[in-house]
């Protein structure tokens, strides 16, 4: 199979993260997590979540006794560039797995590439349904949650907080992830009684959203849903707050803003504007502290990461770290680097102790199922990392869907056969 490390004493992992472009800081955090994971796998440091991981296959002696080495590449958050770096890792550096990334477009593109090339792809940040929906691939895996799950987790909380009689106005980033997120939030909130008065698509390259915000003022909507991420989210949220939306009363209700997908870095970029705004996350560094040992692993990870780097890890760092351990563990359990063996070991794998509570890697679509964290921007942060407060952790069964759900490509979506390459 491709890049079989059998006759070498080391094994090379490929970390493909954005190092330039708008997500460079996220990529940097992902890379920190990867480096930490490599350390732990090789038996250095305190072992982090390896101590709490329910599977005990990992020994701290590398993977199957081979020392773990890694190569890095810059995806630039462009699929062409990401595929180029992934290819160079596979063709030149002999990587057996590619992992990382911080957008669904890149994830889908690199996942397809890994399928072709016969290596495993462990997705980093990707939230669109398609990654494990209509574009799912046998060689690709996603630990991160997705748009549908965000909707399913958020809607009950929103209706509880804001009531069932609400009129929502959506601003949606005009690309695939935006579409799936809008769809997910709409469907789940409408099911609970909300009305969607309007949904407007905004260009990805937009920087000033005033022209999209002012019509919201004119409508009779009382909730604004920002299906935005990255700079789009920072700017649209900042603009919305500038236009006084948060101080407005409509239909005798206080106007509210919702950001379905939160990220610590973006919250930091938006500054005070995030205060009181609801959103969802895959994970948060305060989970174990606040919600107890169901989320065991969290503290261990925060400790090793915090001690090494001086600040708490982001959810991007977390998911990347976890993916690395999961891969290494699967290899150990399969007893082989062969991608098909790894796929078999990961499919249907149930585990715990990696910070999200009990988790399942579902066989049908290679999506992880676990609790989703609903958060709200904190009113009085205690320090610069304390930006959100956890509202609840939506239990996993509330966010589970059928593998052939229509939002996920329906019956047409197929993993295909795993490819072990040459």
């Amino acid at each position, binding site marked *: 199979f491709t890049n079989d490390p059998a006759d070498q004493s080391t094994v090379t992992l490929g970390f493909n993260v954005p190092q330039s472009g708008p997500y460079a800081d996220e990529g940097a955090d992902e890379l920190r997590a990867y480096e930490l994971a490599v350390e732990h796998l090789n038996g250095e440091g305190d072992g982090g979540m390896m101590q709490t991981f329910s599977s005990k296959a990992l020994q701290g002696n590398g993977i199957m006794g081979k020392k773990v080495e890694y190569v890095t590449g810059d995806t630039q958050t462009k699929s062409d560039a990401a595929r180029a770096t992934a290819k160079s890792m596979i063709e030149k550096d002999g990587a057996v797995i590619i992992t990382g990334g911080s957008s669904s477009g890149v994830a889908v593109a690199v996942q397809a590439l890994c399928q072709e090339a016969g290596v495993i792809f462990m997705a980093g940040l990707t939230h669109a349904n398609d990654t494990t929906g209509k574009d799912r691939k046998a060689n690709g895996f996603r630990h991160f949650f997705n748009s549908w799950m965000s909707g399913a987790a958020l809607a009950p909380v929103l209706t509880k907080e804001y009531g069932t009689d609400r009129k929502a106005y959506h601003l949606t980033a005009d690309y695939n992830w935006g579409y799936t997120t809008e769809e997910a939030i709409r469907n789940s909130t409408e099911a609970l009684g909300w009305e969607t008065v309007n949904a407007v698509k905004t260009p990805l390259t937009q920087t000033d959203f*005033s022209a999209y915000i002012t019509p919201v003022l*004119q409508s009779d909507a009382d909730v604004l849903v920002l299906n935005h991420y990255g700079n789009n989210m920072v700017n649209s949220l900042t603009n919305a707050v500038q*236009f006084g939306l948060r101080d407005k009363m409509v239909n005798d209700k206080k106007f509210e803003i919702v950001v379905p997908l939160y990220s610590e870095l973006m919250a*930091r970029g938006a500054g005070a504007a995030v205060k009181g705004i609801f959103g969802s996350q895959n994970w948060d560094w305060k989970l174990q502290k606040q919600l107890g040992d169901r989320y065991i692993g969290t503290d261990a990870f925060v400790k090793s990461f915090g001690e090494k780097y001086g600040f708490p890890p982001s959810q991007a760092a977390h998911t990347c770290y976890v993916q690395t351990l999961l891969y290494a563990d699967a290899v150990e359990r399969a007893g082989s680097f062969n991608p098909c063996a790894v796929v078999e070991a990961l499919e249907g794998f149930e585990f715990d102790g990696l910070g999200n509570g009990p988790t399942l890697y579902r066989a049908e679509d290679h999506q992880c199922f676990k609790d989703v964290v609903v958060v709200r921007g904190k009113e009085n942060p*205690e*320090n610069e990392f304390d930006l959100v407060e956890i509202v609840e952790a939506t239990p996993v069964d509330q966010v589970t869907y059928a593998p052939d759900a229509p939002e996920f490509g329906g019956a047409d979506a197929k993993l295909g056969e795993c490819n072990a390459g040459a």
Partner: protein
Amino acid sequence: MDAIILQILNGLDKGSAYALIALGLTLIFGTLGVVNFAHGALFMIGAFCAVTVSRILTLSYTTVDETRTDFLGNPMEIEVPYIHNLVGQSAGDFMIDWAVPISILFAIPVMIAIGVIMERGLIKHFYKRPHADQILVTFGLAIVLQEIIKFYYGANPIPTPAPSAFRGSFDFGAFLGLGANSIIYPYWRLVYFAFSLVIIGGVFAFLRYTTFGMVVRAGMADRETVGLLGINIDRKFTIMFGIAAAVAGLAGVMYTPINSPNYHMGMDFLVLSFVVVVVGGMGSLVGAVLAGFLLGILESFASMAAVLETLPGINQIVIYLVAIIILLTRPRGLMGRKGVMEE
């Protein structure tokens, strides 16, 4: 009706941003004939002047507060800005609050210095070189400047709020007697609008009512001959560059409360500001400003849901579409001069 007024207001505001950014560009590009791909970077550096000033003002020493703990459970470290010790707590807080306006004072000399250094050290060797070479060198410079900022400030946007006095919104509706809360608009955006008008007016006046403008125009058209008339055109060009850099930088400073600055914000604006300048017509300041307002207003209207329902995706392309139509119907943009950058 309210919606229309609001969208026009929006368009004017957005247009003033375009116009202000394009103004600096057209001084260098339309007047000195240098295709300056580093203009966006100057705008970005202006914005980071504001970030820097607010960082300097909040420069702090740490004291340990034993009663609280940080995320790892260690005793919490509390930051106390030096400025509190310097000018006292309330004056210090006021200055921190007013960091953005204060940074104007800081940005003007810094940007002029950057502009002058850039012109003396680099651009002056490129006046006679082909535009393609100018693109390559200024693009290279833009990348370098961006990377330096990224190195020190990271890639994530950095929130830089307006003074709290300007954070609310102005109720135009009540003001115009159209009913309270029907048309409200954030104060800072109004400040930005007014600021743009002042700067634009100032630059116009300077170029119009001093012979400086004529000399620079002449020097641009024919350096040699202007030299023959005893005029040291190099110096004028340097001054011009400094002014343009300052205009770009001020546009950046004032923009920070509207959108949190990040290291590539310059590149995001670059293409648009080129389009604005060219649609306005090469060599025409009035044209650039007009085009800025025109495109701003059109973009605002194209963003309305009603428009998008009939023409999906029009918001994505409206600026380019209008640019094409204008350039095809008016050979030199709105008010371009003949022979400027037509080869």
